[in-house]
């Protein structure tokens, strides 16, 4: 078990990571950041009205998950999951379309930011109910075992979610049944407006694993390589039948709880300190020190911005779901229950 103490921030080592993998991590992070920034800018400019829970600052964790997983591996995420969706390969028009509620969205505008599902890319559920994705991911892992395949399930959630009954019930069940599921806590140090130390009597979320009987690891979630290595190892363990792992990736949330939340409750010193570890600053610096050129990084960022812009164009030109569409998919067989 590693801890933050013996793995100081920004101590990335490229041990056993190829240049191609580093490049994939960074392009995933760049796309995640670009989606987040573009939607927030659109809201701020009045270009469109919607709501997102920004993931700016948490890019490294999702990129690591994306790199560690196969396309057929499953992911369950939360309202603050746009970076996870991007990293798992959900097409940008489907993500942004769902955020804006238009017909290009993953569910043609019937889900919204908090409810994006794309089974083609393994994203089976996104939930707005804190903690409730955990048992569902356990069921996805159970199905993999029953199918006799070595598919794994990853579920992401915040530190706040680890205080819910669903978290404890789900992790316990996975530990008892030794299921191939990896619980990834993106600990951004706040649950809405409440700092983690007000809601947990322990120092690290990963310590919760001890009481439930599975490995628990704390990693620097601003370090995509370290996070990738931890997740990769947990995935390998799960694939080999070794059961679940609880991973706590410590990070920070720079844009408040929701787009528009000024984050006044975050102490200035804490914010300034966190900024020093912004992965969108530290990782490019690391890459420059490890064989990448500024031109290469610029190109990755530019390409990400271009892709997002192209997706936004498609999305804003598309109509919202019509009434016909809005009434379908309530039941499988087209059953419409009305009182008239």
């Amino acid at each position, binding site marked *: 078990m590693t801890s933050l103490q013996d793995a100081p921030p920004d101590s990335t080592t490229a041990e056993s990571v190829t240049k191609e993998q580093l490049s994939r991590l960074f392009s995933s992070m760049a796309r995640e950041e670009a989606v987040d920034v573009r939607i927030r800018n659109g809201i701020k400019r009045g270009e469109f009205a919607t709501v997102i829970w920004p993931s700016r600052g948490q890019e490294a964790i999702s990129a690591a998950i994306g790199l560690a997983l196969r396309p057929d591996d499953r992911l*369950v995420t939360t309202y603050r999951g746009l970076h996870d969706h991007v990293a798992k390969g959900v097409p940008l028009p489907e993500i942004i379309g769902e955020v804006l509620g238009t017909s290009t*969205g*993953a*569910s*043609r505008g*019937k*889900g*919204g930011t908090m*409810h994006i*599902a*794309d*089974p*083609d890319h393994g994203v*089976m*559920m996104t*939930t707005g*109910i804190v903690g*409730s994705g*955990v*048992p*569902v*991911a*356990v*069921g*996805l*892992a*159970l*199905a*993999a075992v*029953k*199918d006799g395949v070595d598919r794994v*399930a990853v579920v992401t959630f915040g530190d706040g979610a680890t205080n819910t*009954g*669903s978290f404890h*019930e*789900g992790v*316990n*069940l996975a530990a*008892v049944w030794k299921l191939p599921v990896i619980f990834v806590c993106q600990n951004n140090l706040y649950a809405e407006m409440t700092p983690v130390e007000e809601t947990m009597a322990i120092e690290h979320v990963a310590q919760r694993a001890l009481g439930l009987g599975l490995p628990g690891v704390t990693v620097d979630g601003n370090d995509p390589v370290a996070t990738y290595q931890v997740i990769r190892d947990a995935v390998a363990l799960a694939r080999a039948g070794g059961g679940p792992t609880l991973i706590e990736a410590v990070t920070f949330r720079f844009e408040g709880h929701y787009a528009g939340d000024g984050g006044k409750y975050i102490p200035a010193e804490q914010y300034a300190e966190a900024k020093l570890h912004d992965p969108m600053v530290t990782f490019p610096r690391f890459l420059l020190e490890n064989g990448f050129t500024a031109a290469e990084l610029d190109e990755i960022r530019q390409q990400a911005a271009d892709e997002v812009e192209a997706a936004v164009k498609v999305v804003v030109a598309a109509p919202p779901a019509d009434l016909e569409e809005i009434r*379908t*998919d*309530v*039941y*499988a*067989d087209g*059953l419409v*229950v009305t*009182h008239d």
Partner: protein
Amino acid sequence: MTETQTLSIREAINQGLDEALRLDPKVFLLGEDLADPAAGVNAVTRGLATAHGMDRVMNTPISEAAIVGAAVGAAIEGYRPVAEIMIMDFIGIAMDQIVNHAAKLRYMSGGRTSCPLTVRTAVFAGTGSGGTHSQSLEAWFMHVPGLKVVYPSNPADAKGLLLSSIFDPDPVLFMEASRLYGVKGDVPVGDGYRVPIGKAAIARPGTDLSIITYGLATSASLSAAEALAAEGISAEVIDLRTLLPLDIDTVVESVGRTRRAVIAHNATTVAGPGAEIAAQVSAKLFGALDGPVERVGARFTPIPARASEAAVTLNVADILSAARRTLGVVGV
């Protein structure tokens, strides 16, 4: 003629589960104490773990949210899990998974995921178990688009509706009255037997008044009809069998003929299923009714301890009073 055998509701459900497990490898059961030799406080799953193995009949920790949540996850991967919530009063702990996830995943994914899950649960009404072990909470679920709610009253329906529920593409809440587990009746033999979800049955034909009921309240309604018959009043008893979707057509057809309706259930009358049915009947048959639509259910109190339970829950006398009120009999 269909071949039948006499089974209790407990045996009929057990047989339905056994057949589902045999018919489809995607079916599995999970819940507390399900496996042999214990086979649960309701003993509905007796023998199934022995016959099908512990990986098809899975014992879980006491974790209602995780039982249903894991079932949701497996269901969206194409399994047909049957999750048991031992007693309905515990379902609040799994409510989030049922209402926010199972019921809505198809919709919120635009049909890209599907949740063919069955949640079986036992209603302990009438067992004297008090306020946290005897509630009839079906109205909570009738409020939820995307869910189906089924509540059989006899062995044949129990088996046929259970198999329909398990093989339904949508999530179904399947209610079982523990008081009825021992009730016997004829059940058609064979794997193909199904009772369709969403179709009410005329449990007893009649011409003067319609008693609309379901589940545990069906036998009290039939007893009331019997008593009314002795007085020369012909009551039709409709067993809804499914509460969501509600077979309002059968109800309206019946009340259209009899022009009088009483709705009887074990859930509380206040905001109970009868409120919805009464509103729909009144709206559709306004002008054709010869009396007010009456509804009877439990009093609006928590369920008290053993000796007093009968005083607050539905009984035959309540149904008879309501029948007399809608028939315009004075002095009731």
